[in-house]
């Protein structure tokens, strides 16, 4: 059902697609930062900060810090 493409030095076939997916996806050590309950909207974070009586911690990057950057 799944053809094996030529990847140069790497071969992909139906048996190991799952393994390659696991290889490409980030490992737990690489995504520890995801254990922080990041909000994705500054405006909503302001409301939450008032409700919870806490200051805000903003991580700002050119490119979304939680996505492609």
């Amino acid at each position, binding site marked *: 059902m799944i053809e094996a*493409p030529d990847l140069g030095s790497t071969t992909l076939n139906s048996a190991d697609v799952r393994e390659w997916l696991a290889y490409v996806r980030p490992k737990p050590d690489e995504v520890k930062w995801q254990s922080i309950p990041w909000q994705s909207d500054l405006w909503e974070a302001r409301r939450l*900060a008032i409700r919870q009586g806490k200051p*805000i911690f903003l991580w700002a990057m050119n490119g979304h810090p939680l996505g492609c950057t």
Partner: protein
Amino acid sequence: MAGRAQAFSDPTVIALASERFVPVAENCSPLQSQRDAKGEFFRLVAEQGHYAGHTYPTGTRQGYYTFTADGKVLAAMNSRDPQRMIDLMQTALRRWHTLVDLAVATNGHAGNGAASRADAVPDYVPARPSLYPEGGFVLQLAARDLPREVDTRKDDWRRHAWNLDYAWFTRDEARSLVPEILTPGNRKQAPREIVRRLARFHLRDFVRGEPSVWPEEAIRHGELIAEIVEVSGDRVRLALRGAILLQREAHWVRPEDGEERRSDTGFDATLVGAATWDAARRAFTSFDLLAAGPRCGANQYNNRSDDLGPAPMGIAFTLAGHEPRDRTPPHTIYHRDYFVA
């Protein structure tokens, strides 16, 4: 991407950010000039921070800011060093408690700067409305180089680089991937619009950075086929396969010296995967797709000028979760062609 891990892998940083603050992450590129209340609020904060007033070498306001809900900055910096991050947060908390004590002494209650109630943060009309496809089909992407027989990359962050992104599709677009008649063996070719969005916006070489969108004419070939392999009640299992070939000559002018650069870029991707469609909910309950193949060339912002290839790269697509972070927009969401049929 390496910076993310460096700054936020420390357990003390994670605990402080999670428990003592409301943590929020934003792309500051639009906020630095966005003409709405949110943009103005960001600039109010940023202009009290480490890059206040800076225009050279760039006007970026990247960094880490701690502040009150009404925008009084407690501490700010732009460093990924975990110890400096801890120092920043502890300094901010000391200042925060001073403000709270002062408010109690002055007002008899712990105000939060000017705003003490959630409704003191008014609704506003965003300059750029969210395009999040409510009830739609949201995928998380991860990109990474695949192993090479001969590897000449430096053994630094470039060899270990990986990146994340998101892809958005509407609920109707999700349904359009599934054959109309739910019988094993039936196949469905993905509509042109879905293949086009995958190709132009999501099969970019973003392992090391932020490449530009592929132009329409870069798509030399593109297909994605879903075949039903099993039907069990409302549960429909699908095999996914396809191929997308992208080629173009990228060219850009380096802002630092005005030098023109050109690069033959390409990605010859084979698509393989599996998905589960819930016919009752009319939604995917699983979706795993790998796009893999040789890539070549460099873009202005993808840090590949020392690694032109061809060399193998993989992009993994997975159904996104339902945390606030899973609403992170695709990198290219505001490109005029993203949702255009």
